[in-house]
């Protein structure tokens, strides 16, 4: 009986030949847990409080634990500076050496760049959006719908999970150059709804995925928890190997689903059918084509967060904004997802193009999603790559957050209204 990518990784991490959905297993060979902090919340204190509740003083395997410091970047108050210092000190006391709080960028990507999460590995994070690394063929778990609490990974160095079923989303064909993973996910999510994937993970496949940029694969996997899923994954293939070789000079494994693997559900899409989509507030699972929002005036644009700010996103934004001016009523904030992307974007001249158009370029940071930087005032309307659009997410409860792709945001920044980038490029709005 064939195994899916996830089943293969789970089996290996649990020391078994094969696994089936619904079966309970203990993953013994895992990376993590991975935690982070934000204003007023310390990741290390959280670990301390949970571990004392279960009766262990220190991590079973501190060498596997990771503390990301991707919020509070840069710190905006003395308290935030002190908080970051305290987390660093406590991590040291806990024997945790992997601490990424030096401005490296958003943890979900940094953990891949540092070689901590590799194709074919299983890892634990307390953040469902860590399924981002599913894009390189790694298996994320936080315990899952029917499994244990993530603190088990800290206390015992293992975690009990219920093997999830896999929902296959197969996409074949060629995407229009302005269509990115966000457009794909918004459409799929709107079709399936927020309770489509209880106790399951998504596996994205097909010729479109085979050709897809690695960072876009990661973004595609990053937000599937909003559909109730336990995670998401994409095969590790020759493209994955090339990315790791080019960027990190590392050799990695190929992990693919068997041809006769079993899936709980299968959905098929044709790439050419995807259009630029916008998710509108207050819910996450409601999206429509961008062209239906042409009367929505916007006041802020955000390129960044763990659902954006990739090299591909910056290239698309620069290609549309080159020689153009951002509308005078719009704050256009750009936060590359990591320092690596920031440097590469700079080397390609993308940041100058964006700055000349009027963009404000800032450091890689999660704070732009949380409204700690460039918050929204009552009446503001943001068009953003961020992950969440719930009222109050980025500041005022009386501000609206619409979610869109880099191309849609770039075109909209010029016109001042939500604009389909294809319609924009064809000379009309």
């Amino acid at each position, binding site marked *: 009986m064939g195994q899916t990518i996830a089943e293969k990784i789970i089996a290996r991490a649990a020391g078994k030949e094969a696994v089936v959905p619904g079966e309970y297993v203990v993953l013994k060979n895992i990376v993590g847990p991975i935690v982070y902090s934000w204003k007023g919340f310390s990741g290390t204190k959280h670990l301390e409080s949970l571990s004392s*509740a*279960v009766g262990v003083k220190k991590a079973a395997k501190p060498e596997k634990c990771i503390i990301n410091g991707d919020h509070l970047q840069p710190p905006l108050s003395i308290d935030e500076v002190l908080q970051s210092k305290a987390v660093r000190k406590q991590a040291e006391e806990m024997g945790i050496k992997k601490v990424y709080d030096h401005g490296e960028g958003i943890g979900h990507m940094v953990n891949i760049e540092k070689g901590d999460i590799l194709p074919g590995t299983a890892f634990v994070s307390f953040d469902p959006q860590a399924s981002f690394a599913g894009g390189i063929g790694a298996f994320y778990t936080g315990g899952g719908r029917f499994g*244990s609490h993530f*603190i088990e990974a800290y206390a015992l160095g293992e975690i009990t999970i219920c093997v999830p079923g896999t929902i296959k989303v197969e996409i074949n064909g060629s995407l229009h150059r302005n269509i990115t993973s966000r457009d794909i996910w918004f459409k799929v999510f709107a079709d399936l709804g927020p309770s489509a994937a209880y106790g399951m993970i998504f596996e994205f496949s097909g010729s479109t995925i085979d050709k897809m940029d690695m960072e876009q694969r990661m973004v595609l996997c990053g937000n599937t928890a909003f559909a109730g899923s*336990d995670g998401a994954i994409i095969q590790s293939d020759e493209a994955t190997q090339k990315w790791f070789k080019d960027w990190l000079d590392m050799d990695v494994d190929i992990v693919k689903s068997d041809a006769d693997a079993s899936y709980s559900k299968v959905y098929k899409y044709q790439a050419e059918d995807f259009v630029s989509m916008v998710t509108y507030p207050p*819910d996450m699972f409601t999206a429509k084509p961008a062209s239906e929002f042409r009367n929505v005036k916007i006041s802020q644009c955000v390129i960044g967060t763990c659902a954006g700010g990739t090299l591909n996103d910056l290239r698309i934004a620069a290609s549309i904004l080159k020689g153009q001016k951002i509308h005078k009523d719009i704050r256009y904030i750009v936060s590359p997802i990591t320092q690596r992307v920031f440097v590469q974007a700079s080397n390609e001249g993308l940041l100058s193009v964006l700055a000349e158009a009027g963009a404000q370029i800032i450091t890689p940071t999660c704070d732009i999603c949380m409204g700690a930087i460039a918050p929204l005032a009552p009446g503001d309307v943001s068009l953003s790559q961020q992950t969440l659009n719930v009222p*109050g997410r980025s500041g005022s409860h009386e501000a609206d957050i619409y979610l869109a792709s880099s191309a849609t945001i770039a075109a909209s920044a010029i016109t001042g209204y939500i604009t389909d980038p294809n319609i924009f490029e064809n000379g009309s709005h």
Partner: protein
Amino acid sequence: MGMKFKGTAIVIQGDHVNLDRAMSWYSGMESLPSKEIATKFMVNISPDIPKRAKKNDIVVGGNDFGCGKGHFSFWIAIKEIGIKCIVAESCSTQMLQNGVTYQAYLVEVPGILAAVEMGDEIEVDIESAEVKNITRNTVIKGQPFPPFLLEVMKSGGHLEYLRKKIAGREDTFDEEYCKGV
């Protein structure tokens, strides 16, 4: 301990109810005193709810109850009020994970919203997923969660379950350090 609960139903109509929106959540809310958070309990659903909510009440919800991201105010509020049991048409994954962590007892019973009205006296059996409506003299049955989750709930939630599991392993358990739940 048994996992049977008897109490007055607080019915939350609708599918995909987001707990943050229901509680009128804002960043920093968790730092308020529990009593104050309790006054906001499901206040956006109806301002009546925090006034009527009392110990041993049972929350009844729709499909995908707890949809989306929810912070901890909901769990602080129900603990303060003395509510332990939640029955829903279906529970969002985050609601289930947080509920089992915060020592709540949850069960999914499709059809529950049609079977129970606000104020009905009901009896819920978490292990059999059976709900008796005492007021209306009806019974409805759902699908219990997997045995592992039932065991965890019976132990007092994820952290208590792990504490007991770890206590059984002499090489890892630190009795002096353990502060319990």
